């Protein structure tokens, strides 16, 4: 594995990624191997965040470095080089614009090889349901940071039921005010206490 590329992603070296990936390809390195190195870099960054060594700017930098590297690499990858562990749709529920926790969950999942569809913030129940139709995820994750907006999670589950989609997707919830008890109460399949638990939780549901 190309340790230099892995380190560059882990350290959020956005600025040199394009040159580094191009240079590695020019030297004849295997695109799939480079992708694995970039994924390993993301994982290292995620681990460092989990252990309190890295913070939000570092995570965002690693994510950006990965994106820059992928722009170069994507056309070179063969079909099947990038196997996804599964698809997860994420969003913050309606009335809530807190982005950070959800994005951290997205980062952790991406670094573990999942395809993440991030719907952003202030997402309506209808938009969640539409995303389930469009992307056919294995897991739908909802985030909420406010005790008032978290109540919208139940609306999303009801909307999935109303549209006959509930059985097609596992639903997980997270965010400071929610709890295992609340997850059970509204009929969610799982609850994560923090971003670090997200990968384990999603894996346990698949």
């Amino acid at each position: 594995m190309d340790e230099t590329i892995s380190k560059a992603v882990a350290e959020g070296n956005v600025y040199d990624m394009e040159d580094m990936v191009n240079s590695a390809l020019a030297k004849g390195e295997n695109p799939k191997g480079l992708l694995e190195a970039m994924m390993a870099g993301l994982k290292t960054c995620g681990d460092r965040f989990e252990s309190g060594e890295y913070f939000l700017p570092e995570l965002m930098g690693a994510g950006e470095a990965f994106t820059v590297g992928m722009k170069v690499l994507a056309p070179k990858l063969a079909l099947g080089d990038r196997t996804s562990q599964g698809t997860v749709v994420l969003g913050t529920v309606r009335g809530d614009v807190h982005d950070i926790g959800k994005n951290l969950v997205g980062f952790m999942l991406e670094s573990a090889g999942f395809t993440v569809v991030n719907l952003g913030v202030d997402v309506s129940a209808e938009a969640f349901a539409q995303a389930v139709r469009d992307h056919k995820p294995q897991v739908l994750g909802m985030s909420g940071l406010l005790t008032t907006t978290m109540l919208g999670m139940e609306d999303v589950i009801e909307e999935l039921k109303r549209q006959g989609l509930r059985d097609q997707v596992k639903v997980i919830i997270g965010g400071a005010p929610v709890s295992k008890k609340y997850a059970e109460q509204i009929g969610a399949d799982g609850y994560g206490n923090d971003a670090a638990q997200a990968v384990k939780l999603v894996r346990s549901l698949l």
Partner: protein
Amino acid sequence: MANPILTMGKALLKHKLHLGTLTGMERFMVSAVTLADRAATFLAATNVEPDLVDPKFDYVLLSQSVEANLELFELVRQRIQADVVAVPYWLGLMCVGPAELGTVFKVEKRRVPYPVEYPIKKQEDIAKIKIPQQATGYLKMVFDINREVQRRYPDSLVILTLDGPWDLAMLLRGDHDLPTDLRIHRDYTEAKDQATRDKIRRFGNPDIYPAIMELTTQLSIRLFQLAEENGLSLMGSSLVDQYAAKPIMSREDYFKYVHPYRVRVWEALDKKVSPGYFVPSPQETEQNLQDPVLGKGFGGLSNYIFPQTPEGITLPEYDRPMLELAKTYKQSYMYMVHGKYLRDATESQLDATVQRICRMAAEVRANLMVSIASVPPGASVEKANYVFRLVEKYGRY
């Protein structure tokens, strides 16, 4: 509040000479300097969901009417049995002034107002935001409400809380773009050579972060000045940058890229505001207490952002070190019962939690102040009062 120094002096005299039972405010004041008779209780009224008090109150009404806020505050004061009930307005983050600077908030009946659009999209937008000459809009509402509370309840505590440069910047730039701005600026500043700096410029603008922070530093100073011009005292006021903490940024980045701006605000206001800084551990709390700026003022010891169990209680092993620090530094440990725990815990669970922390405070002989972080939907005013009664029962030193 009447002259706080005088009130403090009288309270201390009453306590030392055993001249009767301390009032809630007196207990609060005494516990700031010495061991009071029992643990104090505190509630920020704004953290009680309005419709739990009376369904006629909603955020639309409260964002339009000074009188509605005052009426709701009076009801909270009547119904909540805390030693001190403060923060008498329900305006969400509009209370610190961003709506008047261009941030667009959505105001709905049953959701606290929240920002949906930020005015700084590119560097040119920074110059469009002018330092206000006078308080207007929601900021003026907050000042008017505080002033009226001071007039109606001279014995009440008016805590002026306004944002520092980082939190204001988050509200004007957004919580996605500002951390990115910081990273680009940091990488540029710390780059070892010009070639790297040139590369960084291809990916972002390293100048936007200091330009925003310069603006918000001036804004923060001015907002506090406006508070004074509107008849409020800066004594006991707080300069808040709660989003400049972990996991948003490291302590090192905070000291390099945020703290210097906060120090400028603090100095420009003659060091009258408390520039507290929330941290997630007793170790960092101690570092803060030893800092010449962060160690100043009230509220330095709090479990506000400490790691929690999935049920929403601060990790129990953190409490004794915090109480030891409270004793050493002669301050109170503000132990927050988080809204999630208040909502989900049974009465016997709450009993065990409050009993534990109170007994520990008595053992350590350190001041404890128990506060409820929020009274959310699914909880009740009665449940909040249950917690406060438990403090009265178990909190004797």
